[in-house]
């Protein structure tokens, strides 16, 4: 019988972790408030009761020590899952993340295996201001050595979490607070969806086509997938049909899916909640630019992202800098009217 059970993304993540912990005694979880509280964003809800305090370990507020300890424990053969409560807190422990967790495998010539899953909450939209609202997946994808997973819904989150735990490499698992299905924060209905009860893994580097359309491609990730899907519905009503591509993982990235879609539509809109400069939207744009020998663009590429300002507190300010459904609709409409310059005829 096909499952019809609907879970929130938080429930799906915690179920994925629980199934892997049952299967593999080497898996354990460390982090702040991940035990009795169940994780501030619910990613470890119910795990303490199931697995006890030796495997679900609340830590002191010492991210350098416990993320470094996760690396040390992984090098010694265990498979830690370690939570950085907000990605914004990377500033207090980045040395352990990018100078050690991300590099020791390479510097050892591939001899040191570091199966660590680093879970962290990302995203804004609820007036938490500049130190608790960033996405920063572009920052982590920029630096080699860590796989970067950014789910947009419960079904994918469970499968990607199971894959992350089984991966022998460091994986950053970044969940957007605004799609976790928390009882204390507005979220997108589409992010809570049908989640099979059995265990399943979703391979990294496989984008998902969320909407199928011939007029333009919207490349996106995380909560922005839900916004883009709503925007695509609105656009369909006025006769504009968009491919909406959920990248799901940035490292590795499904380059072929992006190329294939843009080859089909000839128009590209990137909808991203990370900063505009030097990030995901620039990377995707460069990918298309490098492949213009096999792609014919009908319009210039359009990028929607946070315009290189810290995330502001006040609601109208924040809603302005973070792309919204209306921004995506408007950008898509404008894109349909634009044209690329014709190459000079020689």
């Amino acid at each position, binding site marked *: 019988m096909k499952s019809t059970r609907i879970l929130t993304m938080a429930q799906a993540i915690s179920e994925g972790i629980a199934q892997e912990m049952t299967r593999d005694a080497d898996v354990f979880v460390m982090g702040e408030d991940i035990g009795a509280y169940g994780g501030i964003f619910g990613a470890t809800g119910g795990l303490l009761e199931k697995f006890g305090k030796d495997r679900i370990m609340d830590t002191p507020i010492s991210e350098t020590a416990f993320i470094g300890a996760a690396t040390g424990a992984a090098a010694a053969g265990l498979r830690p899952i370690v939570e950085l409560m907000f990605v914004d807190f990377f500033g207090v422990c980045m040395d352990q993340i990018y*100078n050690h967790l991300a590099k020791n*495998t390479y*510097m050892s010539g591939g001899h040191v295996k570091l199966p660590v899953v680093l879970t962290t909450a990302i995203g804004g939209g609820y007036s938490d201001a500049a130190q608790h609202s960033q996405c920063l997946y572009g920052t982590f994808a920029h630096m080699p050595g860590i796989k970067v997973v950014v789910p947009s819904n419960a079904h994918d989150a469970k499968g990607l979490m199971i894959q992350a735990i089984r991966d022998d490499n460091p994986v950053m698992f970044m969940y957007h607070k605004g799609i976790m299905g928390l009882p204390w924060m507005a979220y997108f209905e589409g992010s809570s969806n049908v989640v099979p009860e059995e265990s399943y893994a979703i391979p990294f580097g496989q984008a998902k086509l969320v909407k199928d359309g011939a007029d333009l491609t919207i490349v996106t990730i995380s909560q922005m997938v839900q916004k883009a899907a709503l925007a695509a519905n609105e656009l369909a009503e006025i006769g504009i049909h968009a491919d909406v591509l959920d990248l799901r993982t940035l490292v590795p990235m499904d380059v072929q899916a992006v190329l294939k879609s843009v080859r089909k539509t000839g128009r590209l809109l990137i909808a991203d909640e990370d900063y505009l400069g030097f990030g995901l939207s620039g990377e995707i744009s460069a990918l298309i630019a490098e492949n213009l020998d096999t792609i014919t663009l009908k319009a210039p590429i359009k990028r929607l992202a946070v315009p290189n300002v810290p995330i502001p507190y006040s609601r109208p300010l924040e809603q302005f800098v973070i792309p919204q459904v209306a921004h995506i609709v408007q950008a898509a409409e404008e894109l349909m009217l634009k044209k690329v310059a014709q190459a000079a005829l020689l």
Partner: protein
Amino acid sequence: MQVGKEKLLWMYEKMVQIRYYEETMAAVYMEGKLPPHIQKGLAFDIGAGPVPGEMHLAAGQEPVGVGICAHLSDEDTVVGTHRPHHFAIAKGVPLNPMTAEMFGKVTGLGKGKGGHMHLFDNAHKFSCSGIIGASMPMACGAALAAKKLGKNWVAVAFFGEGAANQGSFHESMNLAALWKLPVIFVCEDNHWAISVPKTKATSVEWIADRAAGYGMPGIRVPENDAVEIFEAVAPAIARARRGEGPTLIEIKTDRYFGHFQGDPETYRPKGEVAALRQNDPIPKLAQMLKDKKLMTAEQETLIVSKMHHLVDQAFEFARQSEYPNPHDALQDVFVSDHAAARALA
């Protein structure tokens, strides 16, 4: 004295090996780096020669490596510092791949991807890091793993006195004490954090005194002497193996070379190193062994020539080894995935 003849001779052999290794490296390192071999106008080219990059040598600090590692087995973990050779050699890291790594050769521990500050040897549970204070969280993790696996293995974090002012020190000390992790925190006080003396950077005379603030024992070892170190740390190792938690140990030791090779050491008082060398721990141990009839003069000669031969042979192995193929740079970002470049290609 609790330490037996076998351990004493082992410590002596290893110290001779380490000292000769560092002296050999000091000489080899300068090959090709000075005029007339380098570009006109340069006094020194750090990136030239068979061993390029920074080079931090540990001559003078041998007793710390051997005094601690004499207690350890292959199952115990050691995490070293940016000045790691004495720890690596004392822990049993094989000289050939270690040296080849510093020459950037494909036969190196990390196939030439790490260099001298980043030596990884799974078989001997040895690693190190070029970042000050990074050894401590990593050792906590190894100790946590030992505890979870139900083993009485210990993890040693070596760090310099300068690193005791890093946040990682405080976080790790608290975590290890809180969770009763079998970690031995070994502070190697060589007086100098590059050019800054301890007195100008550290609020206490003895870093070991900080242990009290974390609820763990602190042990002061005032002498740069392998036997004293060996004996002073024995209770800490035993305590960790019994599952009673970590200990902080501070050892006063001496740095004979500069912070790195090529360091002009203008900050260092004239004559300091010469005075320190008067108290060289290696001839001191040799004399003690002979006085106690544990080693004859003939044995001493034999040990020295054997240790020198091992080192010479390792440098020869490194010289003769091949460089990696340039395209190998694209591999090993991830394990069992030789497609790092593909991630964004």
